[in-house]
Structures are given as C-alpha cells and as structure tokens.
C-alpha cells in the first residue's frame, strides 16, 4: 500500500498536468478548426512556429509575456496560410496541412541559423512565471480554455454558427452565414491555440527552442480531438489520458516496477490504439469536414 501511495504522489499529478498542457492547448485549436469544417493536421507545425516565435519575441522584447503575444500572432498568421490554401484556394487540406508542418520545421531551423548563427538550438531566454513549484502559469490557463471553448460552441451565437459550418456548410451558406469568413477565423484561432501550446514548451518549460522539439505532440493532440469525439471535455479527457500514460511510463521506469522498459514506452501508443479501436466506435466527425459551401 505504501508503495502505491509512493507511486501516485503529488509530483506524478503535476507531471500529468504539465504533459497535458501542450496537448490541451493544441487540441482546443484543432477542435475549433475541425468544428468549422476545416481539417487541421497542421497543428504540429503551428505549434512549432509558436514555440520558436515565443523565444524570438522574448529574446528581442526582453519579456516572456510579450514573447507569448508574438507567438500567438505568429501562430495565427501561419494558420492564415493554411486557411488561405484550404478555404480560399480549396486545396486538399491534408496536403496543405503537411506543407505547413514542413514549412515550420524548415524555417525555424533556418531562422535559428540566421538570427543567432548557431544550429538547431536557440539561446536560453527568460521564462513565464510559475504559479506553484514546477507548475507554469500556462498550465492553469490551458485547462481554463476548455470550458471557454465549450461555452463558446454550445452557447454563443457565433459558436453555433461555427458548428453549422462544420455540419452542413451549404445549409449554413443558404441562411446567410458567411461560411468562409467563420472558417478563416476558426483556422486562425487554431493557430493561436497551437502557438500557445508551443510557447508552453519554450517559455513555459525549457526556456529555449530546439529543432523539431514538438516531437509529434501536434499529432497526439489531433488524435485527442478524434478520441474526444470533437467535444471539448471529451478531448480534455483524451489529453489527460495520453499525458497520464506518458507520466505513468516515466514514473514506472524511474521507480523500477519491473516491467520491461520497451513495454512501458509503448504504453501511450497502445492506449491510443485501444481507445480509438474500442471506445470511439460511436465517434462522428463533423459532417461537413473538408466540404465547401458551394460546388467546386
């Protein structure tokens, strides 16, 4: 019994919150974009550009809060590219999302070289304050975003219109909703949220940017949206599940509970497969996902 209490301690709880934070931010962004009908596999790249912009902003403006603002703006503008490609030009949304991911991976590495004349890593910058030991201020903000997104979609006029765009863009257009404008807005918001996720990794945790540091978190956030059935609280639960599996894996290796490390490393992924195969059978994507309001 002592062993169990020792295993599930406050530090493990904090670790789950920390590891869920970037997933929650990015997943809320992905949720808004997909709910408006635009597929967004660009979360990874948007997150990466936000993570980098946060460091650049903090470096030049000498204040991590300004750095965060820069990150959110850059994230929104990067997402605007995705919006323009996929809404304005009606390109394949998977292809344009992939392009954003490649763009972010390439430009960040390139700009590190141009700005600091070094490779792959930025200098260390000041971080945002902690609200408790090893809990950055962005952690509670991330969790606060979930009810905000929930009430936005469920109770606000704008949110209901967004969902109409995602379910049946033709019908929404026919009653006078500007589908394209709303979708532009939501895709840009997904960039803002994903940038917050990236900013957490740099000015909320490590204090510096390293190449490809998002390490697939954008895709895990996207999986959380699907697993959470495109619902804010369901998505939150999925983020906590994924972060929990990872934290458990780390704690289990640290405490040496006698399970093969390879098995433990696979745990988060196995959980994802089980979850998606078993639980999400009733999952339904927005019906108008990837569709345009008028025929091509």
């Amino acid at each position, binding site marked *: 019994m002592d062993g169990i209490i020792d295993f599930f301690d406050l530090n493990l709880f904090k670790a789950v919150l920390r590891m869920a934070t970037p997933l929650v931010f990015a997943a809320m962004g992905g949720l808004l974009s997909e709910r408006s009908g635009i597929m967004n596999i660009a979360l990874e790249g948007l997150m990466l550009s936000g993570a980098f912009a946060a460091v650049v902003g903090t470096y030049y403006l000498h204040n991590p809060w300004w750095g965060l603002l820069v990150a959110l703006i850059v994230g929104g503008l990067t997402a605007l590219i995705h919006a323009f490609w996929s809404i304005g030009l009606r390109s394949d949304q998977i292809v344009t999302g992939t*392009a954003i991911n490649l763009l972010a991976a390439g430009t960040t590495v390139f700009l590190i070289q141009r700005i600091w004349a070094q490779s*792959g890593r930025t200098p260390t910058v000041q971080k945002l304050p902690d609200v408790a030991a090893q809990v950055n201020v962005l952690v509670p903000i991330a969790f606060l975003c979930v009810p905000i997104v929930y009430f936005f979609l469920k109770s606000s006029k704008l949110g209901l219109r967004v969902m109409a765009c995602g379910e049946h863009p033709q019908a929404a257009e026919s009653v006078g909703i500007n589908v394209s404008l709303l979708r532009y807005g939501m895709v840009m918001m997904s960039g803002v949220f994903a940038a917050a996720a990236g900013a957490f990794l740099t000015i909320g945790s*490590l204090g510096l940017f*390293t190449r490809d540091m998002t*390490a697939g978190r954008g895709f895990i956030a996207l999986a959380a949206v699907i697993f959470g059935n495109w619902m804010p609280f369901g998505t939150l639960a999925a983020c906590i599940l994924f972060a929990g599996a990872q934290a458990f894996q780390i704690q289990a290796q640290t405490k040496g509970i006698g399970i093969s490390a390879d098995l433990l490393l696979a745990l988060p992924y196995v959980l994802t497969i089980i979850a998606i195969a078993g639980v999400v059978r009733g999952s339904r994507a927005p019906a108008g996902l990837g569709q345009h309001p008028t025929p091509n």
Partner: protein
Amino acid sequence: MVNGRVSRRTFVGASIAAPALATMPFAMGGVAAQDGIVATMVTDTAGLGDQNFNDATNAGGQVAAEEFGAEWKVIESIDAAAYVPNLTAAAEQGQLVVATGFLLTAAVESVGAQFPDVYFTLIDSFVDLPNVQSVLFNEHQAAFLTGVAAGLTTATNKLGIIGGERIPPVIRYEVGFRAGVAAVNPDAEVLVAYVDSFGDPETGKEFALAQYNDGADIVFPIAGLTGIGGYQAVAELNNPGEQWILGADISQEHLAPGFELAVCRKGVDTSAYRAVKQVVEGSFGAGLNQLGLGDAPVGFDNPDVGVGFEDPNGRVADDVKAVVADYQAQIAASTLVVPANDEEFESHMAGTPVPAPAG
C-alpha cells in the same frame, strides 16, 4: 491574383513547393579549401544544436579544417530516410564523409560500398568495408570513472541515468557507470530510464524531474538533445550543491551554470579532427579504430585518446579524485576490465572478472 484562374493553380503549386524546399538539407559553409580536401559530416536525426554528439563532431571538424586547410561541410538529416541521400550527396562532393552515429550504420554500409574511392568515418559503429574507418569508443571506461565519482559524491545514495535510445554506445555508458557506482558504493541505487528519443528535451526534462523528485541527487543524461531537458530540470529545481548533473561527451555547463558535477568525456570532436588529419596526411586508417582511456586527457594534441573523466570546474572532492585516479590506473593496466554490455555487466556484478579483449 491578377491573372485569375491561370495563376491560381500555379500559385498553389509554388506556395506548397516553397516549404518543401525550405526543409532540404543545406550545407554550412566551412573554411575555404586550399588543397582540395572536402570533408562532409552527415548528422543523425538529432542534428546540430544538440550541444552534444553532433555539435562536438562539427566543432572538431572545423578545427581540423582550419588547421589543415580543408573544407568542412555539414548535412543535417531531417529523418532516418535522409541518411542514404545525404551520405550520397556528401560522397559525391568530397574525399571524406564523417557519419555521426550508430543510427547511420546501415546507410554507411550501402553508400560506402557504392563509393569505394571516398573515405568514410563512421562514429560509434562498425562497418566492414576497406574504405570505412569505424571509430568505437570505450565509453564504459570513462563512465566507470564517472560512476566512481558520483557514487562517492552522492548524499542520498540514489543516482539517475536518462538514456536516449538503448543502442550499444549508450549501453556502454550505462553499464560502465553502474559498475563504477557499485565498485565504491554498493548501497547506492541507480535509477535507469530511457526516453526512446534523442530529440525530445521536454520529455527528457520530465524524466529528470521524476528522478530528482524520487530522491536522486546526481542525474546522468546520455541522450543528445533530449539531455538538454535534464539540465533545465536541475536548474529549475535550483538546489545548488545538493543536486547535480553529469555531462556526457562534452561539457554543457552553460545550460545550467553551477550544476555540472563532472564530465564523462568522449572525443567525438577529436575523432572527427583525427579523420580529417589522416586524410590530409594520407594516413587514413580504415577498419576498426577502438579509442579508449589514455595517459593524457582527450584533446586535439592526442586524438588517439578516446575517452576520459573530467572535472573542468573543480567540483569533485580531492579524495574522490584520488580514488578515480586509482581506478584509472587499474583500467590502464588492464587489471580491471570494465563491462561494456549487459552480459559482461551481469558477470562482473556476480564477481566474475570480465576477460580482457583479445589483442
């Protein structure tokens, strides 16, 4: 969109192609060539900026290029699929290709056979080709000494190892360190954890926090870029003099000033230097190059010394250093053979001495 429908498709094409171009590997200009020797380093996926393995190799190559008037270039590998094309590009443009890391073994094997007139230096792995120099290090010897120092320094009797991936060079570090700790402090516990990535510092930080929170007071990240997270963790916990971090390959003190207890030095930089030097002098030594502890510290003056225990900031107590020196002498005299893999570690811990390698 002045040209209306004609330009739309072209624009989509161009705007999608642009980021793809941006991710193409780009070579960093080195020092101008005087006698035409071009040496190109191909990184593993951790890439430059890891403050560790790749950066050190790059630094060594630059020093050599400066000194011998060669040209040094770097091609970064964005993923494992880029190894073969990057090595091919490197082989086509010069006389020497330096492949950094165990992960490039298979790629060097195939590209090396296609370019028999180009010299390849493969660090951390072995490929049996007449034009390939395979540089292996006795990391376990330096890690043993680091373990001795850590085992005598720990106040909590708990130490941590954070590995990137469990590949042979990391295993040599791990078992050498554990054997060293056990030699001087059998009561100390060594937590061993693997992140399964050399490029995820955020997760590396979580591993380090978990180990420190569990009571480890000295953590040894052997994880490339991932290890940066360990330095961030010890700096954030901020218990100077109580919690320490150990450097692998090269010192990374600047990431957490005041917290790096010692460095388990591995001369990846000097081995890159050595390869360029040998090509310039026409004395390229193909085949297996096993570099271990020597009488001198790792440095460009003696590039045949592969590994060493270093205390650049004088943080290790003098009596501890005396014990380390004693063990170093035993290893040099082969009266102590440090285990280098799991089987040797088990027999070593069971009390059976590891036989000295033949030759």
